[in-house]
């Protein structure tokens, strides 16, 4: 009889920090101690605290071990599983705070999880994503059952409308309205498509949902199929997500096996099946029309809208295309009701949003928060703040399509409309925290490099315009910019936004426009003073010795890789600026603060 479950995170983060080896070693260890019939190992999806991986949780007591290594396992088995003594040195700090009778702080009460509200991620890190039965044990496929046996398609769409759910891929279009358009397009063949082509740098929300709870997406797609009258679905997932693909493949096979996909589901006469299509990693294929073109077997290029996919989509037929996270919300909206969902969030943005926290933040990982949570709560409380005592400068949301939220707006409640109003966008949910060591011009340049690389080349404003913008940015960061360049940059940005064919081009100026809006002084410092305030842009940085602080210890001289530093013992040293490659290693070696970066 099983008395304990050990959950091991099998998400991408923990897998790369070695959780598969831990699973195998733990199984051997349990066997050696004769515990294999009492303790069950469950591989789950992402728990969210990727920075602390590999993570394992022991139930029923809920002990949360972080950064576990194979050599820790015998101690965990011997002490905790056999004798019931928690291995304190491995327990996640925030959960250690013993109360009266040996239990510890529940994971849900730690700062990282306390303010989170897990809807789309509710099964991630809780069930084994490769077991349809565990999903069913969490009320899985009950929503599909309810829809097929008790509701009409019109009722389903009404629930979606009432819930206020908006597309989580970034655009924020109301899901119910999108479905309604597809219903009103008359055709005997319609399609349901899932956009799992998550391409923003630093974003892994959809990946984690597919890896942790693939059945939720499958169930929701079947519900969508019933609502609009489609019998065929496609999930377009990037080939770079091997674990997600593997679990989706297993999940689809299990659903077919159980008759939850296929013909005459729940004896309702409704047929639905799903196929996978793999993207080759082109960012533009996350744009819905390019994605559909790619599924059709053509080169992934966007086409003009209208007609929108709901009218003329895949293979020319009415198609709804929603994002992974949007789908993951749907089964619960059906089961718990539209008003339950609408009770969370702000007036125009209902429910929750998953963010991938990255950059200069203590708790790198995945969080799900109610809409309307402020950036301050996300960064300072849930995210654990900026590490190394540095100052928060800005948060970049929405990837290459989004913008920066400066520290002055840190108390803005996050929802679709507020973010647009301050010149950023929700995007799919990547949230990169920047501190005082980040140069905003450099950040804009980074995203422009990405866009230039990923532009499909179909329309001129995007193909040539983004290239020209990047060239101006390079000129500025090299110290050759003029004030006129800033005006040119802005003008070009507005033209590209207005004339590009698809979202990729239209939003590509956002990183520039938002940094110009909030950090114009940094651009001006680059252009006028030929100085990079954060000390990032190498051509604008120089290193100098402060003579009064220099003790002549030679530490810098010995460390310099290009012998650019000269000076005798106990004499003030000098840096040859011509030879210097600005690697900064001398600064880190100097114990007397005698070298400054200008």
């Amino acid at each position, binding site marked *: 009889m099983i008395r*304990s479950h050990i959950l091991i995170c099998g998400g991408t983060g923990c897998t790369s920090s070695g959780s598969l080896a831990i699973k195998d070693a733990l199984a051997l260890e349990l066997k050696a101690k004769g515990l294999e019939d009492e303790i069950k190992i469950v591989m789950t999806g992402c728990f969210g605290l990727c920075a602390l991986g590999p993570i394992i949780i022991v*139930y029923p007591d809920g002990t949360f071990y972080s950064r576990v290594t194979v050599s820790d396992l015998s101690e965990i088995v011997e002490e905790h599983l056999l004798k019931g003594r928690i291995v304190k040195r491995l327990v996640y700090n925030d959960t250690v705070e013993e109360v009266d009778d*040996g239990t510890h702080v529940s994971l849900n009460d730690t700062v990282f999880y306390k303010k989170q509200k897990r809807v789309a991620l509710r099964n991630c890190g809780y069930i084994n994503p490769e077991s349809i039965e565990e999903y069913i044990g969490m009320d899985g496929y009950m929503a599909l059952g309810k829809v097929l046996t008790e509701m009409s398609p019109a009722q389903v769409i009404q629930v979606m409308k009432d819930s206020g759910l908006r597309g989580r891929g970034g655009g924020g279009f109301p899901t119910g309205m999108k479905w309604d358009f597809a219903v009103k397009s008359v055709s005997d063949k319609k399609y349901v498509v899932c956009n799992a082509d998550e391409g923003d740098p630093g974003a892994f929300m959809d990946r984690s949902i597919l890896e942790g709870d693939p059945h939720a997406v499958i169930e929701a797609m079947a519900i969508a199929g019933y609502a609009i009258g489609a019998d065929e679905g496609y999930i377009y997932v990037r080939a770079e997500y091997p674990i997600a693909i593997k679990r989706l493949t297993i999940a689809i096979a299990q659903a077919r096996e159980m008759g939850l996909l296929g013909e005459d589901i729940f004896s309702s006469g409704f047929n639905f099946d799903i196929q996978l299509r793999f993207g080759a990693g082109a960012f533009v294929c996350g744009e819905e029309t390019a994605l559909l073109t790619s599924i059709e077997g053509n080169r992934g290029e966007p086409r003009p809208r209208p007609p929108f996919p709901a009218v003329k989509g895949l293979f020319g037929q009415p198609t709804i295309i929603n994002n992974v996270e949007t789908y993951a919300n749907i089964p619960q909206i059906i089961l718990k009701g539209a008003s339950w969902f609408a009770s969370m969030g702000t007036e125009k943005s209902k429910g929750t949003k998953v963010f991938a926290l990255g950059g200069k933040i203590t708790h790198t990982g995945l969080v799900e928060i109610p809409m309307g949570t402020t950036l301050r709560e996300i960064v300072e409380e849930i995210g654990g703040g900026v590490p190394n005592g540095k100052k928060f400068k800005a948060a970049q949301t929405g990837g290459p399509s989004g913008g920066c939220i400066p520290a002055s707006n840190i108390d803005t409640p996050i929802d679709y409309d507020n973010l647009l109003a301050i010149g950023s966008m929700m995007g799919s949910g990547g949230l990169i925290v920047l501190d005082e060591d980040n140069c905003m011009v450099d950040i804009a340049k980074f995203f422009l490099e990405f866009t230039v690389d990923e532009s499909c080349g179909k329309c001129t404003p995007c193909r040539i315009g983004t290239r020209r913008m990047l060239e101006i940015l390079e000129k500025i960061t090299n110290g050759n910019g003029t004030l006129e360049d800033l005006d040119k940059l802005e003008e070009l940005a507005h033209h590209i936004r207005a004339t590009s064919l698809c979202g990729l081009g239209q939003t590509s100026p956002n990183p520039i426009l938002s940094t110009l809006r909030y950090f114009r002084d940094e651009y001006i410092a680059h252009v006028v003073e030929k100085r990079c305030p954060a000390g990032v842009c190498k051509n604008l940085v120089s290193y100098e010795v402060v003579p009064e602080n220099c003790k002549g210890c030679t530490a810098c001289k010995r460390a310099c890789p290009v012998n650019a530093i000269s000076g005798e013992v106990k004499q003030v040293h000098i840096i040859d600026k011509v030879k210097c490659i600005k690697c900064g290693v001398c600064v880190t070696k100097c114990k007397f603060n005698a070298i400054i970066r200008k």
Partner: protein
Amino acid sequence: MKTLAELVEIRDRMKEKVALREGLGDKRIVVGMATCGIAAGARPVLNTFVSAINESGLSGTVSVTQTGCIGICQYEPVVEVFEKGKDKVTYVKMTADKVARIVEEHIKGGKPVKEFTIGEVK
């Protein structure tokens, strides 16, 4: 899948199994499993409790866990029952045979089996 009833049946069966991850329930049965406890035979006691709780369908509200040495090694195996708002009950010199009565009378019935508790057992 032809009917909703089939799905509900699978769900109910699985719910019990996943319930272990809901965390500790209102009642906790804690078995002393230090060296002294194990030497005195705590393992079969623990396993019998787990089976008995599962079989009686209480796994959602009652959890069975182990703990370290409580300090009364001569009384091992020791089992303590914690319940919100009540004093803990300590059973000593436990055997697998005693488990059924504790589950029936104490866990289900709410009345501790006094003759197995620390004050009574000699």
